[in-house]
């Protein structure tokens, strides 16, 4: 294909050419950064929490009235008993928080009682002997808590466990050379002996600012005696929906002096996950929507401007056809013309995309744009350009040679 005459022709349409190229460049810059952000958000949406989410329910229970610590302990024990008897319930335990719960307690972990020299921060989960089985956590080393090790903690109390179970990641960080089992760690002034190591358990927070220590969780053998308690229920396979209704009714039947929010008092982990990442999902949807509309608008713009050019050059096309150019020649003329403009656009757009990414990295702490996204964006826009120009180009190729003799 002869490029020179195309370039010469384009020189007569500087404004239009530059506009299309600029539009392609901006669209590329925005779309590939948007794709990059969308992908990052989608990865977060599916970040595994380490627990067997598919068969778990969480119940948020708040005691009405003002029960004292002793009352709360017996109320909680009674509730756990009640829940265990509900048909379809496999296991249950009471805790302060859970993965994706976005709230809870974090403590510094150190090798000595000196709180000032903590190695890392760790997310703290209150647990009992049923916690591992309920959550479906795999114990890779050591043993589970024994029932006689489970302590109770009221509002005034301190967390100072004798034994703890930690994640494999935390164990590797604290004791890189040897097994952590039997070693003391300090989350209080007292040593806590590591008795077990679980494979994976994320801390309760999903926000990226907590990502640094998201794998460092510690299970402590306590029941927390506060007016608000979370029951985690493991359900037998395939009975999630039925059990969701049964547990609320069973708890109210056992004791009416409580509040379980009708809206989100009983949630499956699918709902917990959806709520935890709602903002990320929203952002991904918004970005996708904007990207699609941007591509459509750019496509429409190319169709519009090329149609005008075709209309303007009907006479020249007729002359070329009369001089022996085939339909295919005309078609490929317009396709090549668009390709040239689009290539110019994507080269400029590539630079813009990287510049935009650098700016976003500075302003919004995003990562560096992976080249794959740029490449995907370039291919998309080149294809879009060719697709958009096809209809006007086909119309151009159908201009009859006799057009050369007409005067308009």
């Amino acid at each position, binding site marked *: 294909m002869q490029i020179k005459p195309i370039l010469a022709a384009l020189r007569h349409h500087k*404004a*239009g050419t530059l*506009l*299309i190229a*600029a*539009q392609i460049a*901006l*669209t590329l*810059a*925005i779309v590939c950064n*948007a794709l990059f*952000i969308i992908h990052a958000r989608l990865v977060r949406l599916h970040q595994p929490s380490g627990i067997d989410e598919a068969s778990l329910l969480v119940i948020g229970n708040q005691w*009405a*009235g*003002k029960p004292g610590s002793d009352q709360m302990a017996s109320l909680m024990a009674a509730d756990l008993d009640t829940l265990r008897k509900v048909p379809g319930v496999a296991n249950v335990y009471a805790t302060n928080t859970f993965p994706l719960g976005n709230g809870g307690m974090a403590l510094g972990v150190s090798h000595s009682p000196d*709180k*000032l*020299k903590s190695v890392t921060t760790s997310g703290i989960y209150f647990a009992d002997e049923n916690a591992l089985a309920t959550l479906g956590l795999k114990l890779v080393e050591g043993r589970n808590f024994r029932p006689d090790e489970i302590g109770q903690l009221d*509002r*005034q109390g*301190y967390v100072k466990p004798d034994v703890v179970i930690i994640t494999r990641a935390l164990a590797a960080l604290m004791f890189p050379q040897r097994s952590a089992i039997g070693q003391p760690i300090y989350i209080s002034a007292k040593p806590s002996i590591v008795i077990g190591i679980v494979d994976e358990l994320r801390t309760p927070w999903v926000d990226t600012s907590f990502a640094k220590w998201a794998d460092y969780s510690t299970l402590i053998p306590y029941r927390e005696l506060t007016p608000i308690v979370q029951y985690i229920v493991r359900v037998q396979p395939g009975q999630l929906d039925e059990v969701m209704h049964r547990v609320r009714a069973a708890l109210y039947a056992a004791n009416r002096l409580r509040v379980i929010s009708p809206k989100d008092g009983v949630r499956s982990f699918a709902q917990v996950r959806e*709520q935890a990442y*709602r*903002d990320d999902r*929203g*952002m991904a949807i*918004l*970005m996708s929507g*904007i990207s699609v*509309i*941007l591509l459509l*608008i*750019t496509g*429409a*713009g190319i169709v*519009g*401007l090329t*149609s*005008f050019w075709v*209309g*303007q050059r009907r006479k020249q096309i007729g002359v070329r056809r009369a001089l022996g150019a085939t339909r295919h020649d005309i078609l490929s003329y317009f396709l090549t013309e668009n390709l040239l403009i689009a290539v110019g656009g994507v080269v400029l757009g590539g630079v813009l995309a990287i510049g935009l990414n650098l700016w*976003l990295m500075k*302003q*919004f*702490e995003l990562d560096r744009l992976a080249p794959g996204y740029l490449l995907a964006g370039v291919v998309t826009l080149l294809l879009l350009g060719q697709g958009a120009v096809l209809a006007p180009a086909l119309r151009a190729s159908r201009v009859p040679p006799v057009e050369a003799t007409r*005067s*308009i």
Partner: protein
Amino acid sequence: MFGYYLDLAVRSLRRSKVLTALMVLAVALGIGACMTTLTVLHVLSGDPLPGRSGSLYFPQLDPRDTVGYVPGIEPPEQLTWIDGMNLLRAKRATHQALMTGGMVPLQPAQTNLDPFHANGRYTTADFFPMFGVPFHYGSGWSSAEDDSKARVVVISTALNDKLFGGQNSVGKTLRLQEADFRVIGVLGDWRPDPHFYDLNMGAYADYEEVYLPLSTSRDLHMEHDGSVDCWGDGGGEQAKLEQSTCTWMQFWVQLDTPASVADYRSFLQHYAEDQHASGRFARPPTMRLRNVPQWLEYKQVVPSDTRLQAWLAMGFLLVCLINTVGLMLAKFMRRAGELGVRRALGASRRALFGQLLLESGVVGFVGGVLGLLLALLGLWLVRQQPSDYAKLAHMDSAMLLTTFAIAVLATMLAGLLPAWRACHIAPALQLKA
């Protein structure tokens, strides 16, 4: 003439419906997306106390031990009880208030209402005059009540409606945490957004329902909620917060003149130096004194996703406008023949230019109206979101006017180049063809 040009513009736009629809739609989508995100941004970054926020300052000190110290590190975002009390008693500002928050168990006298937890603010007396809090009935308390740990309470309008049916409840009794409190004031309509004086409970969260003296709240061991940041041996136990090495108090001062700000700054610096010399502050003495806008900026109150969305939408609008420029160019150039005839018949370049600009203005106007509808739809969608700022997303009249101005101006700007090019066509060339 204007009417004639308008008629010409509408005729010309109707002649190529698809192209016109495409231009209008692109403008509308761009404006709609832009105005939705800008309105959210505008609402979220609004001034919580217009006219006052510039003279309200938040002193910060760094009482922490040397662990984790690096030069230039920002001091904690709250004060310890000891520093708060010292600064409060120094009375170096026009007004100063030391405060924190918590949930207060409330037992209504009515039997048909269950006991519930009310969102409470424990503060010293200057809170009300300093923040210019309006009162429906009664008033706030004075420092005498602070000193005597008086059982007095100021309640919000919403709580007054709920408990007392909106009547003047001053002098009535309210049972909080098993103790009788006398209602001395009912607030008027007051909701500064963001909740600048304590951002720990969510910047756009619900407002407090009960306000009572800080001394009383400590006297009755009322629960403290919010951020507690401890170091050294600080345990964060509720009962011992006064003595512990924890920051958990917010302290605000009103400084009206630049001179008083400078004075307060040097006072704060001297205080930090004294505390350092006495050995209480282990770190080199540092202090910060930010006013409300600086504080909100420092705390990055506006969610970064919202800012990102606003930038994205502006980029989107830019592409839409470039698109419109291209289409407008195509449209105007196609009418070269018609324009040539008008030039030949005596129309000046200026007249043609005006006519073409008016045509793009019409596109902008229609696009703006459509964009406004899209923005209202977008804001409605935002309000369906669960985040606590969602319910604030309403368009005010300022944003409404801005929308139109931006739409029309942007499209006229987009029409400039095509119109200029079109009216520089040599008439003779067109007439020949």
